């Protein structure tokens, strides 16, 4: 299986280098449909050979942004540059961009190889070259035995690979993928995810992927742009997005999180103490926070970053809370505990199942202590 390595070029992280030239540059793009603002003043740079994921719920504007890149929609205002070229007024058939559609949009009356050859035929590529490139591409996506079949004679996974081959065969500068794995079952999705990353590695094409599936985004992306209501809320690597969300929306959208509302009671340049009075616990965070002293704050705590046990921690004044186990979900690799605090709220805690059969296992109605490291909580001001 895949070794989990991210694509080569992503390693130098061009987005951290202010001198690097972005490959795709979206500048203050807004798209209105009547009164509805689908994309609201979005600016975004994507670099060569990145695999960038636009992540958001339905109706957040991610698909509209993708369609503007492909040329199916024109921005109401703002500009889009691809490889330094302004895309304003350039129709989809003249753009150095190809798209893989969510529905795959295969031509039902053409065989697999005619589908893949279609784009090359439009460019009047010599027939011999078309034949070679189509054969090579079908080989790459392991569909050579099915070249003569029609789309309706293929399974979902095969159709998905025809769509991918068709959009890749023209060697576009930029490949747009709209929910590429949405229609596949879980197993096929996982293997295809890694397949996509391999292809991207091999061909060096820049990918922009639209998805609502945060797991898909986390696995695939060099960087993720989280969108909400037409805005890009946060752009960052998967670990940045997960570990350092900028606000409650991102924290809540990516993964599971326990959110505690509180106020600063004590602060310095290198620590802050936040009291979550409603839940009867105090957070000690090992870094300073820039916030006005009495403002409402939130501390986001991921379930896997909380320790759970019967024994009280050494220091019970802060970064811990007591509760009763209200529910356990056994997931195989981990168990999820729903712990009810004295305040009545539920806290989710996950714990890896390290041992096959544990003596003295935690069970329903056990009184437990939850405690966490000072670096585990993320302080959010909005």
């Amino acid at each position: 299986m895949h070794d989990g390595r991210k694509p080569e070029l992503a390693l130098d992280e061009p987005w951290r280098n202010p001198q690097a030239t972005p490959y795709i540059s979206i500048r203050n793009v807004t798209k209105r449909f009547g009164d509805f603002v689908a994309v609201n003043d979005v600016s975004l740079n994507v670099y060569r050979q990145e695999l960038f994921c636009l992540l958001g719920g339905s109706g957040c504007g991610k698909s509209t942004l993708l369609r503007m890149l492909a040329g199916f929609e024109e921005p109401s205002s703002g500009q889009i540059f691809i490889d330094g070229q302004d895309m304003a007024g350039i129709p989809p058939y003249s753009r150095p961009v190809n798209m893989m559609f969510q529905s795959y949009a295969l031509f039902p009356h053409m065989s697999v190889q005619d589908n893949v050859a279609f784009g090359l035929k439009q460019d009047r590529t010599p027939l011999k070259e078309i034949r070679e490139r189509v054969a090579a591409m079908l080989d790459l996506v392991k569909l050579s035995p099915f070249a003569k079949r029609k789309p309706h004679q293929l399974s979902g996974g095969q159709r998905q690979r025809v769509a991918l081959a068709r959009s890749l065969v023209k060697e576009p500068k930029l490949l747009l993928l709209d929910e590429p794995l949405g229609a596949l079952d879980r197993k096929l999705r996982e293997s295809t995810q890694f397949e996509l990353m391999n292809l991207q590695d091999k061909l060096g094409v820049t990918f922009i992927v639209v998805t609502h599936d945060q797991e898909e985004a986390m696995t695939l992306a060099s960087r993720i742009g989280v969108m909400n209501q037409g805005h890009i809320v946060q752009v960052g690597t998967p670990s940045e997005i997960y570990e350092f969300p900028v606000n409650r929306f991102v924290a809540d959208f990516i993964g599971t999180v326990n959110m505690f509302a509180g106020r600063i009671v004590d602060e310095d340049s290198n620590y802050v103490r936040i009291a979550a009075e409603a839940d009867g616990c105090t957070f000690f965070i090992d870094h300073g926070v820039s916030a006005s002293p009495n403002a409402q704050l939130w501390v986001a705590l991921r379930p896997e970053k909380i320790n759970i046990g019967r024994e009280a921690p050494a220091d019970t004044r802060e970064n811990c809370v007591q509760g009763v186990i209200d529910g356990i979900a056994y997931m195989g690799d981990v168990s999820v505990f729903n712990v009810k605090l004295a305040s009545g709220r539920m806290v989710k805690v996950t714990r890896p199942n390290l041992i096959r059969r544990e003596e003295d296992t935690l069970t329903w109605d056990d009184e437990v202590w939850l405690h966490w490291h000072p670096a585990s909580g993320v302080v959010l001001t909005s």
Partner: protein
Amino acid sequence: MSRRVHRSLWVWLGAGLAFLYIPIVSLVIFSFNSSKLVTVWAGFSTRWYGSLFHNDQILDAAGLSVRIGFISAALAVVLGTMVAVALARFGAFGGRALLSALSTAPLVMPEVITGLSLLLLFVAMEQAIGWPAGRSAMTIIIAHTTFSMAYVAVVVQSRLAGMDPSIEEAALDLGARPGKVFFVITLPLISPALVSGFLLAFTLSLDDLVISSFVSGPGATTLPMVIYSKVRLGLSPEINALATLMVAIVGAGVVIAGILMNRAEKARIRDEQMALAGDDLPAANPVSQA
């Protein structure tokens, strides 16, 4: 609950079928009547079929009807498809609602009104610009195209609406210009609707009596007009024979269409099973080598 069908239901079924088909059956039977009197049975004979094929008036009218049907159906398919594409694909252009309402108006317009208005138009045009010169097969074709293109537009538009628009977008995205997308992608995909639109327009034209009567001129007599005028002078066994032939042709068409559809359905099921089996094939489940 009993799975047995109650006896009275069989009676009702028989009554229903009789109501529908007794007129046609009696027509077929009496076409083989040797008597000149349509209502008196005088023994089996095929003489009326023989005399039918020597009746130039009927044969000419049948030929004209088929010609008019073909030409007007072809024109209706072209024009109706253009209307359908405009309505289904051009978004919210100015006058869209008007086009939508007007192009389908002939569906609900009484034929007498359509026929009368076309006649008045042709007369006025002849006086104003000298064309069309008199009423002829040409005016019938124009009239039939006018009302049958509305049917084509409805059929094609619903097919276009049911088509995944991203198929056309994918073709654009792969570098095909809009005109090419229409001819290489859209047209083949809506071809079943074009065929059924053509057949519908052809049938409507072949069947039309009212509008044809208004706009036809001397020498342009269609088959329905001949039948109608003959029947007014008294029933003729020849007409029975003609009608029987038409029933036979339509019946054969329905049977052939049924066989073809059945075959297509079987092929579809086979393809589906082939597709389902696809995921089990080793080539269908790629595992990266890295």
